[in-house]
């Protein structure tokens, strides 16, 4: 039953994708090594690098668990309890994905200027990134057959113990995937941390590029980020486990009976209200306040046509980037789900590495490579789309991996035994099964591309303007009224995308 020939074809494509994804490393690593071992050690073994390591570590150690706890708790309340207005909460809890993290940081700094440093950084990143955990966990909790849980209850376990023993283990792939995304974003996060005056490797790399005039120091710091990323990837592999999530069985799957909240209803509502206020109301309210100031002064100097043109360019790039990243993730994810081996695992892990690097590092590396080896693609839409695919592959990969894990391989095998060939199986069996997760991956990448700054600035064709660039330009001039329309447009564009994500949770399997 091994479809070895098609698997080999997919493996070749997956290897090609992995090769493209690690292209930036071909520039970063030689540049880091260019000073020689002693020079590198001199640079890295400094108190400041120790401080950066501590800061980066602190952020990951606090934000990742916080995002897991908040995301899981919220998902459980919405999907498994008799929470009033669950549908509304589901949409509101996903909505922070529609607000660019740096807009949210701007908002927090203007609402609470005293809240800087580690506390502010951890708060804003947690609020911005918990939906990465909420989304897959909610989808899984809703789809998960409650049968095991009920059996556990009938055998005398308490409700809590039944959840811990039967539901939590099933959540492992969703939790670890979400945690991995949060970690990668934290490693590469710049805008929020700079606003919050909290220095990590990424902010230090940005400074190095702003002040320094050799790439070596920036590349050395970037290499440390790569090591941290490898560490995170190894940990996630251990955390995910190998338990099967897919289910094939006779009869219809049952929907879990919602747990009654009783006296806990009010605290639960209060918890969600606070979470939504902090993660959504603060940034959206601030943008609305800027927008109110913009009505007379800002819009006069802001031709609506200009805003539309910028919006259209952003949309084109977001859609192209999202399709590229999703298509690139598909072979690796499929290979991992169906032919798990050392090689497929390596190919998948390789695609995560570059995304832990700040955009400026990936951007300048691609400038070097394109100028030296592929001059015709330099400053074309094609190159910036490749950069988006490299930077945001993990968002697609994590979603697809979860979707394929939940799609029973037996169905493909049955299709093949009935005479379907490889490609036909893909189109008629696999894709329909994983369509929701393909859509999720695509949407998550599109959201990221729509707010990307540095790689766009370095690689997009001359004359390209995006909402994020326009916002950043005006905000950098302290001109919040003029920046507001761009921020508002980014949020408006993202709302339908987050509604698509909501469908992913609601999708019945």
């Amino acid at each position, binding site marked *: 039953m091994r479809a070895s020939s098609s698997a080999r074809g997919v493996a070749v494509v997956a290897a090609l994708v992995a090769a493209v994804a690690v292209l930036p490393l071909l520039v970063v690593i030689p540049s880091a090594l260019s000073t020689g071992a002693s020079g590198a050690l001199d*640079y890295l073994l*400094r*108190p*400041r690098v120790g401080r950066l390591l501590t800061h980066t570590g602190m952020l990951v150690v606090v934000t990742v668990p916080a995002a897991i706890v908040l995301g899981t708790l919220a998902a459980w309340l919405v999907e498994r309890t008799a929470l009033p207005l669950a549908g509304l909460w589901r949409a509101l809890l996903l909505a922070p994905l529609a607000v660019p993290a740096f807009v949210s940081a701007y908002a927090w700094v203007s609402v609470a*200027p005293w809240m800087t440093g580690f506390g502010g950084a951890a708060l804003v990143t947690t609020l911005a990134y918990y939906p990465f955990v909420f989304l897959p966990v909610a989808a899984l909790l809703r789809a998960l057959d409650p049968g095991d849980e009920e059996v556990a209850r009938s055998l005398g376990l308490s409700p809590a113990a039944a959840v811990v023993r039967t539901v939590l283990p099933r959540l492992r792939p969703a939790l670890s995937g979400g945690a991995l995304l949060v970690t990668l974003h934290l490693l590469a996060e710049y805008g929020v941390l*700079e*606003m919050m*005056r909290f*220095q990590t490797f990424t*902010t*230090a790399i*940005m*400074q*190095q*590029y*702003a*002040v*320094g*005039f*050799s*790439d070596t*120091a920036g590349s050395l710091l970037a290499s440390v980020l790569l090591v941290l990323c490898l560490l995170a990837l190894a940990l996630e592999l251990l955390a995910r486990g190998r338990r099967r999530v897919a289910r094939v069985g006779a009869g219809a799957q049952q929907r879990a009976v919602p747990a009654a909240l009783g006296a806990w209803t009010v605290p639960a509502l209060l918890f969600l209200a606070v979470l939504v206020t902090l993660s959504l109301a603060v940034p959206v309210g601030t943008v609305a306040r800027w927008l109110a100031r913009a009505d007379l002064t800002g819009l006069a100097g802001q031709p609506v046509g200009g805003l539309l*043109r910028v919006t*259209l*360019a952003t*949309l*084109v790039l977001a*859609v192209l980037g999202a*399709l590229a990243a999703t298509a690139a993730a598909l072979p690796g994810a499929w290979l991992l789900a169906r032919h798990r081996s050392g090689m497929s695992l390596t190919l998948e892990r390789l695609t995560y590495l570059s995304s832990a690097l700040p955009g*400026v590092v990936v*951007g*300048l590396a691609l*400038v*070097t490579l394109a*100028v030296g080896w592929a*001059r015709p693609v330099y*400053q*074309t*839409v094609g190159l910036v789309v490749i950069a988006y695919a490299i930077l945001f592959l993990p968002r697609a990969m994590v979603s697809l991996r979860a979707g394929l894990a939940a799609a029973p391989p037996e169905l493909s095998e049955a299709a093949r035994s009935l005479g379907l060939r490889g490609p036909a199986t893909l189109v008629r069996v696999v894709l*329909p099964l994983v*369509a*929701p997760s393909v*859509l999720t991956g*695509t949407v998550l990448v599109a959201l990221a591309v729509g707010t990307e700054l*540095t790689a766009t*600035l*370095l690689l997009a*064709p*001359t*004359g*390209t*303007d995006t909402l994020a660039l326009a916002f950043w*330009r005006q905000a*950098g*001039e*302290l001109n919040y009224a003029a920046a507001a329309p761009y921020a508002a447009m980014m949020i408006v564009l993202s709302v339908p995308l987050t509604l*698509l994500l909501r*469908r992913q949770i609601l*999708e*019945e399997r």
Partner: protein
Amino acid sequence: MPTKRHALLALVLAIPLLLTACGGKADSGFTPQAGVLQIYSAQHHNVTQAWADAFTAATGIKAQIRDGEDSSMGHMIVEEGKTSPADVFLTENSPAMTVVERAGLLAPVDPATLGQVRDGMAPSTGKWTAIAARSTVLVYNKDLIREDQLPTSMMDLAKPEWAGKWGAAPGGADFQAIVAGMLADRGETETRAWLDALSRNAKVYQNNIATMKAVNAGEVPVGIMYHYYWYRDQAGDKQGSANTALHYFGGGDPGAFVSLSAGGVLASSDLPTQAQQFLAYVTSPAGQKVLVDSGSKEYVVGKGAPSDPALPPLDSLDAPKVDPFTLNSDTVVSVMTDAGIL
């Protein structure tokens, strides 16, 4: 459910096709156009745009602007080398231009253009010219400190009594120029001592604006910044500067350093005449007036063109005399690295 799902997927797949179809016209902005002057600009977008528009109106030569930031754009031009699409490069601070100059990528600026700018506003090499200037200032909170309590030299901030009382943004290109000026003026030993004090004693902010706002909010009594952000805020709603005033060090002090925004023509330009014309326009009285009218509050550098009347005259600032080409960025980076700032 499946039909709905398919419709949704079809929609997602169709969007790019639709967009590229409708985007046909908008696409023209997506490629460098032949015969159009390519300006790589790290200057404030509004200023460059105003210059380009006025230049096109005056000469009929069209220009396209590529936005960037000092250092990454400088790196980018060096990577592009002789095949760079850029004709003109404009920076906020001169060290990024020096990087391009050292890579041998700049053509000499027309002597007539250099003759239009004030003395000392171009490097001795003549490879680029100043297009605007900004002065280092000490911003202070009027409620927390009196003018007579302010330091007489920026070097005094290194003294123990100022520990924890000053703010700066050492991580940006702006500050790098200030350190470069100090290094050229005071030498390495004194600069190192001052930077050590900075890394121990100063509160670090991400940029000039954040420093100014922190001083305004009373987080620190004084901060180092460039002058024009303050004047812009004062001309606007004063949200970030109402409680503050500016102190000019003067007397040739490193704290009176004037940083030059630079303009240069790429040796590889395929429109060298037009590129030289652009620099000539920017530094002419008409071009310098565009700078003033843009509201940027930067100093003009052309002869016979007045800066914004709100600013104290550039000549009265008594800035230290430094040849901008000697602003040695490698040493700057190494002293800042050793001080633990980078």
